[in-house]
């Protein structure tokens, strides 16, 4: 491991001092003079017509400043909320996009849907007034699961969306796939449910909108992963204010996992109300609101088939998925079960023909959108569980079956049948290393030991791949994305040689303040303690697309490197002048500029001082040392690896103990191995949560959210997890300047399949997530009875 503070060194996170000493500045820590407090009245019904809303008593309530409803929002032409990714259906038609008002107008469509905003001098008064709002609801039958919603005769969530169908989409060559199936030696088949998850970021969403009537400018403080995208959408599509009159600030944000990418009703309404009442308006979500109204994740129902020849070579794969979008389309909902999912179904394998069809539809549940991994965990789960089933069906060792089908290390770039061109990798290397770390060859002995104690033991593989570094703008544009997905970076030297980096990436737990500082410190020779990283403020950062899809280092970091190159280029001119040498003779290494073949050198600190105090300066050169760059990636990056889980199950109780875990991830080059390992740990924990514990349940009859608190929604804890064995392999990404791939989501993508393959290996029976003790116990009992 590298010493010091440069690239490759496990530098302690600069930001942690304030986080662990209570000095973080989260949204609820921010207050504005004279602010009023907002409270949202939410629908208690899953599906109901609104016959009327009487706000008279609420308006007359103590301390109330305003009570606003959907009718007023519509009258002011604010909103509706948008979905920013257009999907073309099988039949060539665009996806069905029903209106998404920020406050309900004629109907409420899920429990937690926004009905009115009450603004008062205090939060207590706002809540008291909300109790006095009389809403005349006419209940309608709800539908909560996607299979029921797409069936004939289902309740209609939107009157203008027939059959609740958002889109019927396909990817791949159907004819070639069907032909390969018809000639197959064996077809492995699996029905799967990818359980719906609630993100549960530690900090609930919040918004504080401040209107300055003197300059007619709105400032929004919000828990966002992408403040510039929020500003763009609020300005261009929601009618809040022009971009030059809207500043969006996302300060320290306590976790996002995707749920804070989106532009929600709450911040929109706070902005609207702040201008209307000419006072700052603050809303802080409560945990109950997070459960009800943060965008949920996953929720797929899938049938998948894999065709194999006699030797176990994959011939073709066929996948049919139904995806639940909830009641409305969230900001990027449509992309998740289509282009972020179907395009990863080749996995690490050379499967020559793949066909995927996805029906996305509406239900009376909270909107569903990207959640850590966003489509790729769903794809990996399908591929890796199906491969395991094929191995069991054919009696081939699951590791061996994978090896027979891996894309070979010399086959890159590798074009899959589902759009993606993998950039680099060595899949067998990761698998072999993981097998060694978990001592796969000793598993039979450990299993025998477990059985001697009356326990079941299982080993499960997950050889995952994902697409990160989102994304080449032209490529995603051709697939329907409404935005470019480049990133900006700015390096500003101060006259005394210290540096501020401005990045369009946003850190809400990823450690950018450390990693990005390491990049610049290593490249430009500035001591890391002299480097600040500034992010999250549209008023200071040039521009940005934010943080999601494990893109920050690959795209945001690359933009910073491009800016560093510009700094070096200009510095060489200044250094050449100071050393009275020709520019082409000046060499640069880590902040030291020297003339080849001489002992002459100047440091970048001297160059910076000269740039700002240009008394002795090259003619015609601009003063200052401050460079901005934009970086648009040439391709996605493709982190991949193998996770192996080992479990021991007590058939008497159904309790699954995660006995061991080996993770080998190829993230390309590593900047800070400690941060990478932390990201992997967190990702695995989230994946284990999905596989063992977490599930979102809506009551089928009433549409009520049954798992609406931590009494009923079970999150993973430290005692549910083993000590992970984490290693990396490092095949550099060939197309970005850092050779990096992205590590933020890998754990959550790899883990569920590894764990479920281990559990089903132990049980000898397929079950769906989450593998709760009850479900595992029942499977263990029926498996024993069958013996």
């Amino acid at each position, binding site marked *: 491991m590298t010493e010091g503070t440069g690239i490759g060194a496990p530098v302690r996170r600069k930001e942690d001092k304030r986080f662990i000493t209570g000095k973080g500045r989260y949204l609820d820590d921010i207050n504005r003079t004279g602010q009023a407090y907002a409270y949202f009245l939410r629908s208690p019904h899953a599906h109901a017509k609104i016959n009327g809303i009487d706000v008279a008593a609420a308006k007359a309530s103590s301390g109330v400043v305003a009570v606003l409803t959907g009718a007023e929002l519509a009258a002011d032409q604010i909103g509706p909320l948008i979905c920013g990714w257009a999907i073309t259906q099988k039949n060539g038609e665009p996806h069905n996009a029903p209106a998404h008002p920020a406050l309900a107008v004629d109907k409420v469509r899920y429990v937690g849907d926004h009905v009115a905003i009450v603004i008062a001098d205090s939060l207590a008064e706002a809540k008291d007034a909300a109790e006095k709002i009389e809403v005349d609801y006419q209940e309608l039958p709800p539908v909560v699961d996607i299979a029921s919603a797409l069936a004939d005769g289902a309740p209609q969530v939107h009157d203008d969306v027939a059959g609740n169908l958002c889109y019927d989409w396909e990817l791949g060559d159907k004819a070639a796939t069907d032909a390969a199936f018809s000639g197959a030696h064996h077809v492995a088949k699996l029905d799967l449910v990818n359980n719906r998850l609630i993100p549960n970021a530690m900090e609930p969403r919040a918004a504080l909108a401040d209107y300055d009537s003197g300059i007619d400018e709105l400032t929004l403080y919000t828990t966002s992963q992408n403040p510039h995208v929020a500003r763009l959408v609020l300005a261009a599509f929601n009618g809040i204010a022009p971009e030059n009159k809207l500043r969006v600030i996302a300060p320290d944000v306590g976790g996002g996992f995707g749920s804070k990418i989106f532009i929600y009703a709450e911040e929109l309404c706070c902005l609207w109300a702040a201008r209307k009442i000419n006072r700052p308006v603050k809303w802080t979500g409560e945990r109950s609101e997070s459960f009800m109204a943060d965008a949920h994740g996953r929720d797929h129902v899938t049938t998948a088939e894999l065709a194999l020849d006699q030797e176990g070579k994959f011939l073709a794969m066929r996948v049919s998925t139904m995806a639940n979008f909830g009641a409305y389309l969230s900001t990027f909902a449509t992309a998740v079960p289509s282009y972020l999912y179907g395009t990863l179904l080749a996995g690490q394998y050379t499967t020559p023909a793949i066909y995927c069809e996805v029906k996305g539809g509406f239900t009376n549940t909270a909107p569903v959108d990207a959640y850590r991994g966003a489509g790729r965990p769903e794809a990996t789960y399908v591929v890796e569980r199906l491969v395991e089933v094929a191995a069991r069906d054919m009696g081939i060792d699951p590791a061996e079956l994978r090896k027979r089908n891996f894309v070979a290390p010399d086959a890159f770039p590798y074009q899959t049948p589902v759009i993606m061109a993998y950039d680099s990798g060595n899949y067998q290397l990761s698998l072999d290393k993981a097998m060694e770390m978990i001592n796969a060859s000793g598993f039979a002995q450990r299993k025998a030991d477990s059985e001697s104690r009356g326990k079941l033991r299982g080993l499960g593989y997950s050889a995952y791949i994902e697409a990160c570094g989102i994304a080449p703008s032209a490529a995603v544009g051709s697939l329907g994305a409404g935005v470019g997905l480049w990133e900006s970076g700015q390096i500003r030297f101060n006259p005394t040689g210290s540096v501020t980096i401005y990045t369009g990436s946003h850190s809400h737990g990823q450690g950018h303040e450390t990693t990005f500082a390491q990049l610049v410190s290593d490249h430009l020779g500035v001591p890391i303690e002299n480097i600040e990283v500034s992010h999250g403020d549209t008023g200071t950062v040039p521009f940005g697309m934010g943080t999601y899809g494990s893109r920050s280092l690959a795209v945001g970091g690359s933009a910073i490197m491009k800016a560093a190159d510009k700094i070096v280029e200009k510095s060489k001119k200044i250094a050449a002048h100071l050393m009275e040498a020709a520019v082409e003779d000046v060499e640069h290494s880590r902040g030291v500029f020297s003339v080849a073949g001489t002992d002459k050198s100047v440091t970048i600190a001297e160059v910076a001082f000269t740039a700002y105090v240009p008394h002795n300066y090259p003619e015609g050169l601009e003063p200052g040392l401050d460079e901005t760059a934009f970086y648009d990636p040439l391709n996605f990056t493709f982190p991949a690896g193998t996770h192996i889980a080992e479990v021991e199950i007590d058939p008497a109780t159904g309790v699954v103990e995660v006995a061991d875990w080996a993770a080998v991830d190829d993230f390309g080059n590593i900047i800070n191995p400690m941060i990478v390992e932390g990201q992997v740990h967190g990702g695995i924990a989230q994946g284990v949560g999905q596989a063992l514990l977490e599930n979102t349940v809506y009551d089928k009859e009433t549409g*009520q*959210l049954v798992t609406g608190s931590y009494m009923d929604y079970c999150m993973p804890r430290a005692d549910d997890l083993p000590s992970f064995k984490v290693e990396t392999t490092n095949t550099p990404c060939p197309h970005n300047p850092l050779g990096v791939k992205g590590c933020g989501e890998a754990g959550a993508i790899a883990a569920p399949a590894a764990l479920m393959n281990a559990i089903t290996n132990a049980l000898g029976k397929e079950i769906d997530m989450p593998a709760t003790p009850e479900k595992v116990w029942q499977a263990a009992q029926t498996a024993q009875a069958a013996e």
Partner: protein
Amino acid sequence: MEMTGEQRIAASRETVWQALNDPDVLRQSIPGAETVDKVSDTEFTATVTAKVGPVKAKFKGNVALSDIDPPNGYTISGEGKGGAAGFGKGEAKVTLTEDGGDTVLSYAVTASVGGKLAQIGSRLIDGVAKKMADDFFTTFNEIVAAGTAPTAGEAAVEAAPEDVTAAALEAADRAVEEVRQARGANPWVWVGGLILVVVLVLIYFSRS
């Protein structure tokens, strides 16, 4: 939530019917009932204050009677609104049958809660409802068996169903109010909402 059961009451059907239709008896028997007001012959409002654990809650609600078939039984249904706290609603079919000198009261209840009540309290509703039902019948049985029920005439009989309904409604109302007051404070608050449902259940019983 679904709940069925029956109670043997040591009194004649006539006596039970009268007691069930006596607002005073109901008010005494329904845990926390404060007011029972008649809106029409088959509709009532009621306020009930209930305490579960550390939380006291007040619900306001409306109750309606249907399928009235004296003295065999009826269906009673009710709904209590808690504003931001959500709602509770339920329906009970109640029948009275004679068995020797006693009366057997049978009930089949379905009830549900929505919004925050469901989000926080759905797991607790069964236990709360059963406890409330037990408390109701214990008190009711004591009163009827002790002969403190009004001996009262036809007027009482006719009015009683309505009063019962009203009690349920009021109970619901008060519970709602208390939920409002306690709102946001503690998960137990929402349990108060469940009580509304229980109250409605009780009312059903009383009606028969």
